[in-house]
């Protein structure tokens, strides 16, 4: 008597695929989600840099020669002597000293110094760089693969666990809500 053939059970395969793709997507989901949140609110903050400004003062008179004046300012402000990347005379009374992440605007007549700088938000800046595909080339393939992976995750997610009412239960309602959100928004806002 031949052995009865077992029907192929596809849901466990789907769940395994969904789970493994989910594992693969964790890293990129954090990158895209966090930078998405950050860049969405770009009008309220700079997602790449922490910008700062502060007013300082050094004693006058400053040395007349630019390099000497810059060295004097750095010493007065307790900054490393070799930290100036460039010194530029904007006009008779203003000297700009370029540091790695800041600029010192020095009024040579009054000794007033305005320091304005940018400290990179390390992880967010990298995430934003990846999200906006500023690197181009190979990253386009990685981003495309991730997007395709999300489509597979969304699709397998619908079918991986059978509901008590098949596809028509709570899952259908939630899918409908998810689809309705962009449709309603586009309809009510007038769209592009």
């Amino acid at each position, binding site marked *: 008597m031949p052995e009865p053939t077992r029907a192929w059970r596809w849901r466990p395969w789907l769940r395994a695929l969904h789970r493994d793709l989910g594992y693969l997507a964790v890293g990129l989901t954090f990158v895209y989600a966090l930078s998405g949140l950050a860049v969405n609110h*770009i*009008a309220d903050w*700079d997602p*790449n*840099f922490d910008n700062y*400004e502060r007013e300082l003062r050094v004693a006058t008179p400053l040395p007349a020669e630019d390099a000497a004046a810059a060295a004097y300012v750095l010493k007065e402000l307790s900054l490393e002597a070799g930290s100036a990347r*460039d010194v530029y005379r904007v006009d008779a009374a203003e000297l700009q000293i370029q540091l790695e992440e800041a*600029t010192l*605007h020095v009024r040579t007549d009054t000794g007033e110094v305005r320091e304005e700088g940018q400290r990179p938000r390390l992880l967010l800046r990298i995430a934003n760089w990846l999200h906006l595909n500023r690197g181009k080339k190979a990253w386009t393939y990685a981003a495309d693969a991730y997007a395709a992976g999300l489509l597979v995750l969304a699709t397998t997610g619908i079918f991986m666990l059978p509901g008590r009412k098949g596809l028509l239960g709570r899952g259908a309602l939630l899918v409908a809500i998810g689809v309705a959100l962009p449709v309603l928004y586009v309809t009510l806002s007038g769209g592009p």
Partner: protein
Amino acid sequence: MTDIRSPSSDLLRAISRRDFIQRAATGTVITALGGGYYFLNDRLTREAQAQTRADGRPRVPPGQRVIEALRPMGGTPGSPNPSEFRLRISGEVERPFELDFAGLLALPQTDVVADVHCVTAWSCLDARWRGVLIRDLAEKAGVKKSARHVIFEAAHGYTANVRLEEALAPDVLVAHRLDGRALARPHGAPARAVVPSLYFWKSPKWLTGIRFTSRDQPGYWEVRGYNNHADPWLEERYA
């Protein structure tokens, strides 16, 4: 075995539901009050909306909210170092040339007080810019009659396209000072374009070149779904 649907557990569940609804309602009311306060307390926008520009248009374009100071709005920074600044004037011109920062400062300087309108819906009023008018640079270069558009070129390949007649308006300039101070790094030091009549992505920071062209060449954001013209009063935000 315990009956999990005992009256006491039903009661507990009802209380829990009531508690949840109360908390949700409280949260919603607080959020709504906060949002309402945010909009109703927007004195700057209300005052500016009551004003009219000299050209008859409202001071505040539709959909904009007035804020107190210019915001940086990102971008991949170029060198803030004036020593490294170079500005190429090229394309449909008789006499292409290049300026360093000292050369820019040596040209006639113009002060312009202009409002800034960002596509992300904020506006900043009465920004005081100092720099060199594009029309002065165009005159120095001898723009050919074939020129129809201006392409602003900036660090890392950023570009923005502007119609020639709009780029030559008397308030369009290469600015190196804002509100009496040298331009700060987040705002494109040492020099940026300023085109006040268009959304501000048309005013590239870390400017490196001004190219006159006979044909339009949509720029960085224009090929990414943003409007090719970008008039704030027509709300030309997206393509």
